[in-house]
């Protein structure tokens, strides 16, 4: 096994974050070629319990997706991401860079500060550039951590509306409207009442 392959393997293993080729090269002795070592390493881990994964322009080691059931025992507690958070996150992913006003426009409800803070804290979204519109509002974009978590190489890999529809994810009928939705700012208009309540309790 090439010495450079060993080095890349060790660095990717020990690093808390995905590592870019540039950083690998910077950390390895002068004259090393991380990109080439990565090719070999990726091949070496094919079909194994862990594999080399590219996220954004960085690399990381990840356990094979089909073995995720093995990680179940370690689970202690999780909080389900609220519907409001998922929708906000989806909008940011599909429309980035996007302002808070635009998110509200798309969701049809205002976005609570807590939702945005939660996503920021999870490091799934971050602030992007300010928009060149009046008030120069800040925008949100998804992070490398987000791509990492959802196994995406880039946000462009998200399926489009057409694909969603053909995959049956787009309902063609409008959901029933419940005019009595609570107006807690961040609530869904079309969700059932109990859903709204569970959101209240989860946040």
């Amino acid at each position, binding site marked *: 096994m090439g010495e450079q392959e060993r080095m890349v393997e060790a660095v990717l293993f020990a690093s808390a974050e995905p590592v870019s080729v540039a950083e690998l090269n910077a950390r390895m002795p002068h004259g090393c070629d991380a990109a080439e070592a990565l090719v070999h390493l990726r091949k070496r881990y094919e079909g194994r319990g862990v594999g080399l994964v590219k996220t954004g322009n960085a690399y990381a080691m990840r356990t094979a997706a089909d073995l995720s059931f093995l990680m*179940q025992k370690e689970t202690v507690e999780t909080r389900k*991401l609220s519907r409001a958070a998922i929708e906000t996150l989806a909008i940011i*992913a599909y429309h980035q860079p996007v302002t808070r006003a635009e998110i509200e426009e798309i969701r049809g409800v205002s976005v609570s500060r807590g939702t945005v803070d939660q996503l920021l804290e999870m490091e799934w979204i971050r602030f992007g550039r300010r928009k060149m519109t009046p008030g120069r509002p800040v925008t949100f974009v998804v992070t490398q951590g987000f791509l990492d*978590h959802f196994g*995406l190489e880039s946000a462009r890999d998200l399926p489009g509306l057409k694909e969603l529809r053909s995959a049956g994810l*787009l309902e063609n009928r409008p959901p029933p*409207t419940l005019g009595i939705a609570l107006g807690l700012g961040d609530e869904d208009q079309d969700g059932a009442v109990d859903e709204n309540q569970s959101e209240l309790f989860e946040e």
Partner: protein
Amino acid sequence: MSSELPATSGDWNAESAARLSVQDRLAAEALIVDVDGYEGPLDVLLTLSRTQKVDLRKISILQLARQYLLFVEKAKALRLELAADYLVMAAWLAFLKSRLLLPPDPNEEGPSGEELAAHLAFQLERLQAMRDAAARLMARDRLGRDFFARGSPEVVERVRKVSYSATLLDLMQGYARIRTRDEFRPFALDRDAVYTMEQALVRMRSMLGFAGDWGDISTYLPEGWHDDPAKRRSATASIFAASLELVKEGKAELRQSGLFEPIQLRRREPRE
């Protein structure tokens, strides 16, 4: 206990001072530190024994005892306060010294001077061995310094979130839900009956200045939001949420006398 013991190598054994090499003297001068620097009498003895330059097994306990007693004398002369255990050791060594020097008394009970000396030598050797072992241990390859654990362990929570709480599917479904709604329903209509928490906050902040006494939070409902049930519910919920927010910010206090009783709010006086 304080200051330094300005002893020189010659003080330990004046006659042999001339014969000591520079290195020996440096070793002996290692003792010129405050007594606090020592980890007890055994540590002093071990340090002193190095000046003998022999295997610890062949060390002269007699000589060591003399050196130690000199060390204590010196400290006393400087009126340094020696901890009790240093003095206890001095007394014990004085006793040992006399036992080693005097011909054994056949009528005397207890272990011989040689036995006592052998045990002291054993203690010194054992302490030295532990120090060497400690040094070897600390010099080993160590986790987090020489070898490393997985930097991003796929923990618990995160993994669960993948499978449970926010999968790619959730994300796409969430997005699909919004887009579908958009295609069929103008959202502008919805906002009519929605009084957002932000609106409620703005309203309450401006009114809070006058809320010196307890008042039902329902009195904060805006004009025109009382009659339509949907609007009233929305406004009530937002007013309530905004109240909680104000409490969190430390600007207001809430109270309720019992289940389903009116919730009351008043301004909280800033603590100064």
